[in-house]
Structure formats: structure tokens, C-alpha cells
């Protein structure tokens, strides 16, 4: 993680493409839900800094509050305490520069693939001037032939690709990935992991991924943040300096995996 310098002069951490990604600072963020009058704490004083163009994975047991943290970053909810900053500016609401890809693709069933991808441009009144971006985003995810298909005609992988294109069309500087591959079969999943990496390398955005799949986190991210059970606290931070493209069988990844399992308290099963 390199500090400061103007964004245009900076290069991507893993290749020489220009970086357009933002920095993200999470400062002492705590959050709790109100469950029938009982406060349910989900996040406990989380602090995290993410540099431009970094790919960071949040790893933790299911139900630990990872997705809640992402909703706060997206600006869909406000934290009970603490604050979040993008480029030093406090996050106060959703913004198209910070787009979320959810576990469920949640495509609008009444819109075609094209219409779904067009959503962000339409919402911001840019459809007329930036129409060609839709085509480009669909090409990027390999869905050019399905422009007029309706979501129910797509496979799980194609739906998630459409959701990805819907996010990319907005040219996000921070892409928030909430277990985006969680519902896919293992083969599609492996293919799409590779695609995600090359997308990130080409587009230069900052990526924040939530997952409970240790291999996925290690294969994709440059830094893996391990969270505890609810209320989530950061228990470990593992830097994965392996260059891209990575190979799943790399002994270094196996080593790191062992380390992560230990932090999750699962090393007995190793």
C-alpha cells in the first residue's frame, strides 16, 4: 500500500494500468440492529484503510456482520457509531461510484439484459449520451449475444455476469462485492473468479469483497481481513503478495490458507 500521490500519476499495484480506484477509510465503526427492542450488536469498532486500486477480501463466519459492513460502505445504511470515508469525504448515502454486486443478482425481471445494464445510466439521465457504455460493459462480461434476453432465460452465471455489467457500466471507483459468486456452481465460480481478477486489473477500481470462501479470498485479494463471530471485530490481516495471474495450486496459497484457518479457529480440521 503506497500512500498519497495524485490518482492520475499512480499505477496499479499489480500492473501498470492507471488507477482510478478510491481510498476507503473505515474508522471505529460499530453497528447494531434493533431486534424487538433488544439491541443486537453486529459490528464492534472496525477500523480499516484500503488504498487505491487494492483488492481486499473480508472473510468471516456466516452471520458475522460482513454484509452489514458492506451496506454501510455502500451508504445504504448509516453506522450506529464511527464513520466511513471515501477519498477523505464521509459517506452519507449511496453513490453510483460505489456500486454493490449482491449475492443474489436481483435483476429486474421486467427488463431485458440490456435494460438491466442500462439501469444506472437511466437513473442518472446519462442514457442518451453514454449509450455505448452498455454495449462495452456487456462485451466485458461476455454477454453480447444475450442483449434481448430476459433474466429468467439466463443461467446463474449469466445472471451474475449481467449484475456485474450493471455495476461496471457506471465506471465505479469502488466495487463492492457481497459474495457475488456464492450461488454459482463450482465450475462457473472458478471461471468467474479469474474473470473478476482480469476485470479488476483492466478497470483499475478498488475492490472490496465479502466472502466466506477462504480459497476465493486468497485467490482474488491482495489483503484478507479476517473477522470474528458476531459482533465482528478484525482478528487478523493477511497480506497476499503473490503476483497475478495466480495459480490455485501455488504452495504459497496453501500456506496462507493454513494461516487463515488458524485465525478462524478451524486449524484442527486441517
Amino acid at each position: 500500500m503506497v500512500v498519497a500521490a495524485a490518482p492520475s500519476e499512480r499505477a496499479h499495484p499489480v500492473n501498470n494500468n492507471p488507477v482510478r480506484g478510491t481510498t476507503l477509510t473505515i474508522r471505529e465503526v460499530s453497528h447494531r440492529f434493533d431486534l424487538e427492542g433488544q439491541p443486537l450488536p453486529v459490528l464492534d469498532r472496525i477500523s480499516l484503510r484500503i488504498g487505491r486500486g487494492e483488492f481486499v477480501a473480508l472473510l468471516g463466519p456466516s452471520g458475522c456482520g460482513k454484509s452489514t459492513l458492506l451496506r454501510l460502505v455502500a451508504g445504504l445504511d448509516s453506522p450506529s457509531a464511527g464513520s466511513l470515508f471515501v477519498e477523505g469525504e464521509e459517506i452519507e448515502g449511496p453513490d453510483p461510484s460505489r456500486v454493490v454486486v449482491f449475492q443474489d443478482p436481483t435483476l429486474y425481471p421486467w427488463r431485458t439484459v440490456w435494460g438491466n445494464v442500462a439501469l444506472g445510466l437511466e437513473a442518472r439521465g446519462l442514457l442518451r449520451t453514454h449509450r455505448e457504455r452498455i454495449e462495452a460493459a456487456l462485451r466485458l462480461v461476455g454477454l453480447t449475444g444475450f442483449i434481448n434476453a430476459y433474466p429468467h432465460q439466463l443461467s446463474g452465471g449469466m445472471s451474475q455476469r449481467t449484475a456485474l455489467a450493471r455495476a461496471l457500466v457506471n465506471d465505479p471507483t469502488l466495487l463492492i462485492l457481497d459474495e457475488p459468486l456464492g450461488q454459482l456452481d463450482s465450475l462457473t465460480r472458478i471461471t468467474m473468479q479469474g474473470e473478476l481478477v482480469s476485470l479488476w486489473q483492466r478497470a483499475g477500481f478498488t475492490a472490496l469483497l465479502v466472502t466466506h470462501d477462504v480459497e476465493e479470498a486468497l485467490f482474488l485479494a491482495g489483503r484478507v481481513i479476517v473477522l470474528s463471530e458476531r459482533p465482528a471485530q478484525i482478528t487478523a490481516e493477511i497480506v497476499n503478495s503473490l503476483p497475478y495471474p495466480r495459480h490455485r495450486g501455488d504452495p504459497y496459497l496453501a500456506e496462507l490458507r493454513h494461516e487463515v484457518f488458524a485465525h478462524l479457529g478451524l486449524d484442527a480440521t486441517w
Partner: protein
Amino acid sequence: MSSVVDEVASGPKPVVGLLASPVARSLIGGLAAAATWLAVAVLITYWPDKPDSDWAYTDDLTALCGALAIALALGAVAGVWFAGLQRVRRASPWLIALALYVAAWETVTAKLGLLPLPFFPPPQAILEVVVDDRTRLVTCVLASFHLLATGYLLGAAVGFVTGVAIGWSRLANYWIHPVLRFIGPLPATAWLPLAFFVFPSSFSASIFLIALATGFPVTVLTWSGVAGVNSAYYDIARTLGANQRFLVLKVAIPAAMPHVFVGLFMGLGTSFAVLVVAEMLGVKAGLGWYLQWAQGWAAYANMYAALLIMALLCSGLITLLFRLRDRLLSWQKGLVRW
């Protein structure tokens, strides 16, 4: 029809192939229907009406059945070349059944006189009404349609807007929902005496009643549709930069459309009922009025004719609404049983 194919199945193979083809089946079906209608025409003309009855339109009924038979035969033959006409094949069993029904009706009324008059007139009596009283019937159809269309469109529009408002805004929900809960279930016809008194004309009073009858189901279903929209749809749109206006117009409303259509169908059904009641009790035109008037003169053939026309009008409008739904909600085709 299948028995015809079965019989031929033992014959030489090319013939089987020819007869089993959709073209051949459509031809056979069409010709069978034509033959049945021709047989009905023959029955009507050669079996004399019951003595001392004077049905003026017996020959016209024969001509009508004969013309139908010729049209069906021509259509069946033309279907060999024009694929579009082959779809009529699906209707041919129904056309045959209809012919048999007319024959039976004709037999028990005009021919044998088994059913008491004037309550059960023969088919030619109804034909007579449709032909002789056509001016009045057309005027009534237009009057009914005018009233229904105005009231229905008004009610549907107001209901839709109200439904979206209470589904979307807490404030609107707080103030409108109780009123809707209290007044909505009241049958629109219960307002009838009051409406005819308060409104300047029976026409405007009827429009109010029809709009009320349509508005309630449309409001309730639009509301439940909007309220039931998956909240993830809103999250997605919000992160993509959507404002409130976009969320309502491009997310809530399209997502609620399947519900809205259920409301529109229900509203159309109740609006028919209110239309007829309003016309019977206040308005001096329309099919409801015609029914009432025909009853006053014990003109049962006129009544049947009006009922027949009313059925055509109502089912035509329902079909129209189905077409509209098919156009707007075609995206649902793979999701639900269509």
C-alpha cells in the same frame, strides 16, 4: 377426427402421412364443421315449423346457417394454402358443438313447440330482433360502452394513483388507508339512491358508481403490489444513483404491474354489474335499460338478444384487457404459468 386418422392408418403409408399432417387435419376439421352447419340449415328449412306459429325469419336463419357452412368450407380449403387459417382447426370441435346446440334449440322450440312461449323463443326470433331492432340496439350498445369506458378508465386511473400513493408514502397510507378500509367494501350499488340524488344527471351518477366499483379493487391491488416489491430492487437502484421519482416510476410500478392487472380484471368484472344496475334503475339508455324495457313488454326475444350482445361486449372487453396484459407483461411468460 382422430378416428378418421385411425381408419386410414391401415392404408398405404403416404396417405397416412398426408392425413396426419396439420394441413390435412385442419381441412378435415373445417369441412366437418361446414357439413354440420349445412345439416342444420337443411333441418331448419325442410322440417316445417309447428302449425299455427308464424316465425317470419325461418328462411333467414336457414340462409345464415348455410352461409356459415359455405364460409367454413371455403376457409378450410383456403387453409391448405394460407397457414394462418389453420389455427381455426382448434375451433372446429366447438363450431360443431354450437351447430348441434342450435339444431336442438330449433327442434324443441320452433319445430316441436315443447318449451312454453313467450319465455323460450326460437333462434329465428332472436335473429328477427337483431335485424329489425338494430338501430335501437346499436344506440344502446354505444350508450353502454360510453358509460362503461368513461367510468372504468376514470376509476382505474384514480385507483392506480391512489394505490401507488398509499403503497409508497407513509403519510398517504395513514390518511387514505382507513377511509379505504371503511368505505371500500361497501358495494358500489349501495350508493345508488344517494348518487342519483346528488349528481346533476343520471349519467354522471352512473360514471361515479362505475368508477367507484372499479377503483376499489384497483387501489387495493396496486397498493399491495407496490408494498410487496422486493426491497433489494430498491437497494440496487439506490446504489446506482436513482432518485425517489425513479424508484416509483421505474422500480415500484413495473414490479407491481402483475398485481395491478389482477385489480383491473376484478374492477372490470364489478363494473359490468354496476353498469347494468345503473342502467336499469336510472339511465334511460344502454343495454341494461333495453333489458328492463324488453321485460316491460314481455318481449323475451329482445331480452335474449340484448343478453347475447351484452355477453359479446363483456367478453370482448375482457379479451382486450388480456391482450393488453400480454403486451405489457410478456416478461412474465417464463416465470409463471401463462
